[in-house]
């Protein structure tokens, strides 16, 4: 099937209105042609919009219960339970202990406050102040925990991509702006997400920051800020709105830390070409 034939069938393919044989042919063509794949994205958006024309009904709560029970009973869930043992353990160590600790401290302080309140009102004020400080500390711990959880999730995404045998590894070239700068872009098997790794860059400072851009037809889209540590290493997970493989280039540029620029203000310190799938 060539592009002309595919383009004629794409609208009906998006509507699920092709025969199985025609659908298989279009699917095979889309796997090899990024241009038709990009065109298909527009048709499938229209098809998704058509679904909204149906009058909206809320499914009954029991349907949710039944569905989640069915999922829970499936073997994959049991496999997952084994895999996530460490994850659950980590969460219980952080969230569980924090919650129990907070509750215990609060109850203890209330009991002490009631007993002492009968005789020593001044000490109650002190305890209240102490309680406030403890609550503040616990609140800070909760914030730290949230950051750690986000980091943990991020690291899991990174490990999924690195472990995937189907990932694309794209080397990044230095432009000479920062001598010794090197990097690579790992694109996940489906092309939607990726990880950019760089080394040899100047550590992030308060005035300047590195930004990562994806470019398509000369138009840049920023996908995040690359933090560089004291060793000159930086890692950024890329979650662009469109698949990475629909872009043609990736750039890393040094920009003023704030505000974020809508487009690169200088030459890239690192750049690479993205191979279409």
């Amino acid at each position: 099937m060539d592009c002309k034939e595919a383009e004629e069938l794409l609208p009906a393919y998006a509507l699920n209105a092709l025969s199985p044989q025609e659908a298989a042919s279009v699917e095979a063509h889309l796997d090899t042609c990024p241009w038709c794949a990009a065109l298909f994205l527009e048709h499938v958006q229209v098809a998704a919009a058509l679904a909204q024309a149906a009058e909206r009904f809320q499914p009954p709560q029991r349907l949710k219960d039944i569905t989640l029970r069915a999922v829970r009973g499936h073997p994959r869930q049991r496999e997952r339970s084994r895999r996530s043992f460490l994850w659950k353990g980590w969460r219980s160590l952080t969230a569980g202990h924090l919650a129990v600790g907070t509750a215990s401290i609060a109850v203890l302080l209330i009991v002490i406050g009631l007993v002492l309140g009968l005789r020593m009102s001044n000490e109650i004020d002190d305890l209240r102040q102490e309680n406030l400080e403890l609550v503040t500390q616990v609140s800070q711990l909760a914030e730290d925990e949230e950051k750690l959880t986000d980091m943990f999730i991020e690291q899991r995404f990174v490990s999924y991509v690195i472990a995937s045998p189907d990932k694309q590894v794209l080397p990044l070239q230095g432009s000479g702006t920062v001598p010794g700068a090197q990097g690579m872009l790992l694109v996940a098997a489906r092309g939607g997400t990726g990880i950019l790794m760089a080394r040899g860059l100047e550590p992030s400072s308060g005035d300047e920051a590195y930004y990562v851009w994806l470019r398509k037809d000369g138009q840049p889209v920023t996908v995040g800020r690359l933090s560089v540590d004291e060793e000159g290493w930086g890692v950024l997970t890329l979650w662009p709105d469109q698949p990475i493989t629909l872009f043609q280039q990736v750039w890393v540029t040094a920009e003023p830390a704030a505000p974020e620029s809508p487009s690169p203000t200088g030459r890239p310190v690192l750049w690479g070409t993205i191979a279409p799938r």
Partner: protein
Amino acid sequence: MLNYNDLRDEQLITLIAHGEKEALEVFYNRYAAPVFSLAKYMLRENGTAEEVTQDIFLNLWLKASSYNPQRGTPRAWFMSVAHHRIIDVIKSRKRAAQSTNQVPHELLDLYPSSHISTEEEAHRNLDREQIITALASLPEEQREVIILAYFEGYSQSEIASKLGQPLGTVKTRVRLAMQKLRAALKYREVE
């Protein structure tokens, strides 16, 4: 604590593919209503719509790793998968000759939804009004093929037989209708 509700659809699908049940529950909360509504509209039967909705989410649990961003946003992809599954049910019904007396979806009903009341309802009604207006603006013969294809689950060949029109004519009508809908929706992101 990680709040799954803050995650994007694509992140949720990645987590579902790795067996995170909590991610599936959040995804269900987001998409159960549109999937169930589409199923109920196309199948015109509550019980079967519930069954197919459950089936669609169970299938997502098993095959989330098959999500390919090059085939659409998570929403567009999932609604396409759901639509495909609903069509399978319609086709199996037709094979069993159980729906020969069904009245076809001649026109989309334009009554506003009154079955749920959330903060998103007003925005959603605007979306719905926009797509219904776009459909209504199509020439009759083009609207007819879109309704037969999308809401009745007919293939292009089946539509040609049903209407007594050449297959090429049906293909052209579908293509033109989709182009016009695309233009009418102004390439609006559905997500």
